[in-house]
C-alpha cells in the first residue's frame, strides 16, 4: 500500500489544528467567529486524524517520515504505527465529540471571556497530543510533551480569577515539570547509550544498558509517565486541576491527556526497552491496584461532581495499569500470548475510558452549564428538565461501572480474565498477587457502581435540593449531539466488541509478536473469550438481547395497561406523612455514610456537630454539621516534602544576596577555578 495518503491526511489534520490555533487567536475580537473557527477546525482535525488513524491501523506495518533539522540529535521524525494509530483514534473520537459540544458550550463565553485565546490553547493542546503520539524522536516528543503541559496549564487556569483555580494550576504546572524532568533524564540515559535520539535506535541501545542503568531508566520513565497519568501517589494534581478547567477541557484532560502517560509506558517499556524486568512489571501491577482501589474510595467521598469524576480517572488509570503490568510480567515470564491478551485489555480500557470519561465530563459540564454549581448537594431532580443529558450521563455511568453490555464491561472483564490466568501461568510466590489483584478489581468495580448510583441519583433523581437546580433548562442541541456521539460509541464498542478486537492485532504483533484477535472471539463472532482453554466466555450481545427479553414484556404490559385503564399519577410512598420535601431526601453525604464507616481506617473521618438550643435540648434551633476526611497523601507525603524544600530554600537564600556584583563574582570565581582545573590536567 502506498504511504502517501496516510502521510498526507495526518499532515492535513496537524495543519487543521495549527490553522485553528492561529485563526481563532487572530479573531479574538470577534467572539462568534472565533468560536466557530475554533470548533469547526477541531472537528476537521479530528475527522482527518480519525481517517489517518484508521488507515494506520489497517496498514499494519509502521510508516515513518523524517525531516532533518540541522540541529544535532534533533529531527522532525514521525512514525505512524499501530500503537500511534490507536491512540490517535481515541484522540479523534474524543475530540470530535468535544468540538461539537463546544459549539454550544463556548457560547456562554461570548462577551465574557477571550474565546480566541481559548481556541489557541485548545488547538495547541490537540496539536501537541497528536504529535506526541506520533513523534519518533526523543526531543520532538519532549517538545510536544512540554507544549501539551503548558497549553493544559493555560486551559486549567482559564477561570483564573478564582483563587482555587490558580492554586490548582500551580500544582499542575509543578507536577508537570517534575514529570518532564524525569523523562528528560530517562531519555538522556537512552540517548547516551545509543548515540541517537531516534526511538528506533533505542531498541539496540536498551540491550547494552547495565542492569543499574536499566533500573534507573525504568524508574525515571515510570515516574515521568506515572505523574502524567495521575497514578497514586503522584495523583494530587489531578483532582485539583481537572475540575476547575472549563468542562469541555476537563473531558479532554481526563479522556486523553492523562492517557499520554499510558502511551509513553507502552511505547518505552514494550517497544523501546523491549520489556522490563519482572519486578518492574509487578510494581506497575501493584501501583495499578492501589490507584484503582484508592481512586474509587476517594471518589465515593466527593460531593463535587467534577472532582468525583476526576478521582474516577485515577481509578481507571489503575485498571489500565493492572492490564499493562500483567502484560509486562507475562512477557518476561515467556507467555507472549497472555501478554498480548493483557495488552489488549489495557489498551481497550484506555480507549473505553477516553470515551465514557469524556462523556461523563461533558454531562457534568451540561449540568454545570444549566445549574451553575458543581456541588451535588444542591442538585436533584434534573432528569425532568434535562432528560437527554440525564440519559447520556446514565449510559456513561453504566459503562464506567463496568456493567454489561457496554464497553467498560468488556475491557474490565478481559483484564479480570488475564489476572486470573496469571495465577496458573506464573510460578513462585508472586503468583498469589494475581488473584489478589483480580479480587481488588472486582471490589473496584462494585465500589464504582455504588459511586455512580450516588452520582446519578443525587444529581438527576428526586426533588431539587437547592434553588440553583430549579427552573433549569436542557443544554443546547450541539452539546447534546456531542454527548450522543459518545453514548453511541459506548454502546457500539460494548455490543460490537467482538468485531472491534481484531483492531488490536497489528499492535500486539508489533509489540509482542502475537495476533490474538481471532482467539478472543468464538461462537460465530458473537462470544468473547479470553483466549485460554480454561477461561470464561461472555457475550455482550446475548446479554443485551436477554435484557431486552426481560424488559420488553414489562414495557408491553405497561403500554397495554395504560391504554386500557388510563394513567393516574399518585404521591410516592411517604410513610403516611403527606408533603415530602427536598429536606427528606438522602444527601450525597448520607448515601456514602456506610462506606465511610467501613473504610474509616483509611478515611480517618472527622466530624463536628454543633447544636444551638433555645429552650430545651430536645428542640435544637440549629444544627451545624461538618464532616471531612483525612487527606492522607497531602498530609503525610507532600506536606513534609514541602516543608523540607522550604527549609532548604531559606538556607540557600543567604547566598542570594541580591547584589549583582556578588552574582557576577560567583560566576567569575567559578570560571577561573574551572579554567585552573582544566589546565591542571
Amino acid at each position: 500500500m502506498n504511504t502517501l495518503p496516510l502521510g498526507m491526511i495526518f499532515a492535513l489534520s496537524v495543519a487543521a489544528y495549527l490553522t485553528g490555533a492561529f485563526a481563532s487567536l487572530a479573531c479574538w475580537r470577534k467572539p462568534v467567529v472565533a468560536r466557530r473557527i475554533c470548533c469547526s477546525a477541531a472537528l476537521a482535525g479530528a475527522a482527518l486524524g480519525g481517517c489517518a488513524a484508521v488507515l494506520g491501523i489497517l496498514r499494519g506495518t509502521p510508516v515513518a517520515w523524517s525531516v532533518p533539522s540541522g540541529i544535532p540529535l534533533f529531527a522532525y521524525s514521525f512514525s505512524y504505527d499501530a500503537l500511534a494509530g490507536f491512540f490517535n483514534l481515541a484522540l479523534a473520537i474524543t475530540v470530535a465529540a468535544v468540538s461539537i459540544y463546544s459549539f454550544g458550550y463556548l457560547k456562554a463565553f461570548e462577551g465574557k471571556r477571550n474565546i480566541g485565546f481559548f481556541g489557541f490553547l485548545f488547538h495547541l493542546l490537540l496539536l501537541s497530543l497528536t504529535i506526541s503520539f506520533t513523534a519518533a524522536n526523543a526531543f520532538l516528543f519532549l517538545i510536544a510533551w512540554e507544549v501539551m503541559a503548558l497549553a493544559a496549564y493555560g486551559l486549567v487556569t482559564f477561570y483564573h480569577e478564582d483563587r482555587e483555580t490558580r492554586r490548582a494550576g500551580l500544582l499542575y504546572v509543578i507536577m508537570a515539570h517534575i514529570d518532564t524532568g524525569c523523562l528528560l533524564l530517562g531519555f538522556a540515559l537512552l540517548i547516551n547509550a545509543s548515540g541517537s535520539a531516534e526511538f528506533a535506535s533505542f531498541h539496540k541501545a536498551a540491550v547494552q544498558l547495565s542492569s543499574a542503568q536499566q533500573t534507573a531508566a525504568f524508574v525515571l520513565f515510570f515516574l515521568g509517565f506515572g505523574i502524567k497519568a495521575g497514578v497514586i501517589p503522584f495523583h494530587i494534581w489531578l483532582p485539583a486541576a481537572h475540575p476547575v478547567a472549563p468542562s469541555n477541557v476537563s473531558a479532554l484532560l481526563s479522556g486523553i491527556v492523562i492517557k499520554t502517560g499510558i502511551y509513553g509506558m507502552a511505547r518505552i517499556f514494550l517497544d523501546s526497552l523491549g520489556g522490563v524486568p519482572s519486578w518492574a512489571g509487578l510494581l506497575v501491577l501493584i501501583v495499578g491496584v492501589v490507584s484503582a482501589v484508592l481512586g474509587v474510595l476517594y471518589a465515593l467521598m466527593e460531593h463535587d461532581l467534577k472532582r468525583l469524576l476526576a478521582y474516577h480517572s485515577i481509578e481507571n488509570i489503575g485498571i489500565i495499569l493492572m492490564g499493562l503490568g500483567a502484560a509486562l510480567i507475562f512477557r518476561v515470564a515467556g507467555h507472549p500470548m497472555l501478554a498480548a491478551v493483557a495488552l489488549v485489555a489495557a489498551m481497550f480500557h484506555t480507549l473505553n475510558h477516553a470515551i465514557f470519561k469524556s462523556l461523563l465530563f461533558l454531562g457534568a459540564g451540561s449540568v454545570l452549564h444549566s445549574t451553575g454549581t458543581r456541588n451535588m448537594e444542591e442538585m436533584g431532580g434534573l432528569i425532568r428538565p434535562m432528560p437527554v443529558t440525564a440519559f447520556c450521563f446514565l449510559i456513561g455511568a453504566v459503562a464506567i461501572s463496568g456493567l454489561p453490555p457496554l464497553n467498560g464491561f468488556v475491557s474490565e472483564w478481559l483484564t479480570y480474565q488475564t489476572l486470573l490466568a496469571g495465577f496458573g501461568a506464573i510460578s513462585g510466590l508472586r503468583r498469589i498477587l494475581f488473584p489478589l489483584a483480580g479480587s481488588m478489581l472486582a471490589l473496584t468495580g462494585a465500589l464504582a457502581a455504588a459511586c455512580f448510583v450516588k452520582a446519578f441519583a443525587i444529581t438527576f433523581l428526586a426533588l431539587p435540593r437547592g434553588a440553583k437546580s430549579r427552573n433549569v433548562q436542557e443544554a443546547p442541541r450541539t452539546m447534546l449531539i456531542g454527548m450522543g456521539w459518545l453514548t453511541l460509541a459506548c454502546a457500539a464498542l460494548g455490543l460490537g466488541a467482538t468485531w472491534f478486537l481484531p483492531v488490536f492485532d497489528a499492535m500486539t504483533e508489533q509489540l509482542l509478536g502475537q495476533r490474538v484477535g481471532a482467539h478472543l472471539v468464538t461462537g460465530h463472532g458473537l462470544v468473547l473469550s479470553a483466549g485460554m482453554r480454561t477461561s470464561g466466555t461472555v457475550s455482550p450481545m446475548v446479554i443485551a438481547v436477554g435484557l431486552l427479553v426481560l424488559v420488553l414484556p414489562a414495557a408491553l404490559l405497561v403500554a397495554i395497561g395504560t391504554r386500557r385503564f388510563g394513567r393516574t399519577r399518585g404521591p410516592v410512598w411517604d410513610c403516611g406523612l403527606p408533603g415530602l420535601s427536598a429536606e427528606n431526601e438522602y444527601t450525597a453525604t448520607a448515601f456514602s455514610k456506610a462506606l465511610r464507616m467501613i473504610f474509616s481506617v483509611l478515611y480517618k473521618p472527622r466530624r463536628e456537630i454543633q447544636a444551638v438550643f433555645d429552650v430545651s435540648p430536645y428542640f435544637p434551633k440549629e444544627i451545624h454539621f461538618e464532616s471531612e476526611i483525612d487527606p492522607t497523601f497531602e498530609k503525610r507525603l507532600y506536606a513534609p516534602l514541602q516543608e523540607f524544600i522550604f527549609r532548604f530554600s531559606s538556607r540557600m537564600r543567604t547566598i542570594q544576596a541580591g547584589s549583582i556584583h556578588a552574582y557576577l563574582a560567583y560566576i567569575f570565581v567559578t570560571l577561573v577555578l574551572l579554567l585552573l582545573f582544566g589546565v591542571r590536567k
Partner: protein
Amino acid sequence: MHFVPNPELGNRIITLMAALVLVLQIATVGQRGILSSIRIFAVQSFLLGAIAAVIAYFNQASHIYIAALLIVFLKAGLLPRLLERLVERIGIRREIEPLINVPLSILISGGLTLLGYVVAESFYHPEETSARAALGHNTLAVAIALFLIGFFVMVNRRKALTQVLGLLSLENGLFLAAISLTYGMPLMVELGIFFDVLVAVMILGILVFRIGETFDSMDVSKLRKLRE
C-alpha cells in the same frame, strides 16, 4: 601571477595588534572617565576588526572581511555612539571608586593575563601544529585574557554603564578567540552573534536608563533594595 602572502609576516602583525588590544583592555581597568572608557572600547574594537581583516587576507578567507567590516561598523561605530548618547542623557560622566582600588585591579589584570597564557599553553601542541595554526597561539592567550579582564571589570565596577562596557569587551575576547582558533566561523553564526550583541546593548541601555531614573543613580549596588 598568484600572490601568496607570507604567513610569518601575518603572524607578527597579528601578535602586535593583539598586544595593543590587551594594553587597551588593561587601560579600561584603570580608567575612571566613562566617555574615555567608551572611546577606548571603540579603538579596541577597531583593532579587532583590523585583526580580522589581516587574518582574512593571510588565510584568503574572503567571508571574514564581512565580519571585519561588521565589527568595525557596529562595535567601533554604532555601539559607542549609542552609549555616548546614553551618557549625555543620564549626565553621569565619572565612575565612582570601584570596589577594588585601581593599582590592585591592574595587578589582578596582570594575573588574569598570566592565567590566559597558562590556559592557552594547554591548547598548544607544537609538534602537530602547522604554520597556519601557530598564528593563533599568542592570540588565543590574549583572547582569554581579554575575556577574563572584561569579566573582572563587570564584577569590579559599580555603574551599570561600565558593566555594559565590561560585557562588550568580554565579547570582544570571545570574538578574538573564535577567529584565531577557527579562522572565521560560518558567516551565519557571526551575523547571529552581532545581532545578539546589538540587541543586548539596546536592552541594557534601556535598563541602565531605567535604573538611573528609578534610583537616581546608576549604582547597581542599590539594586539590593529590590530584595524583599
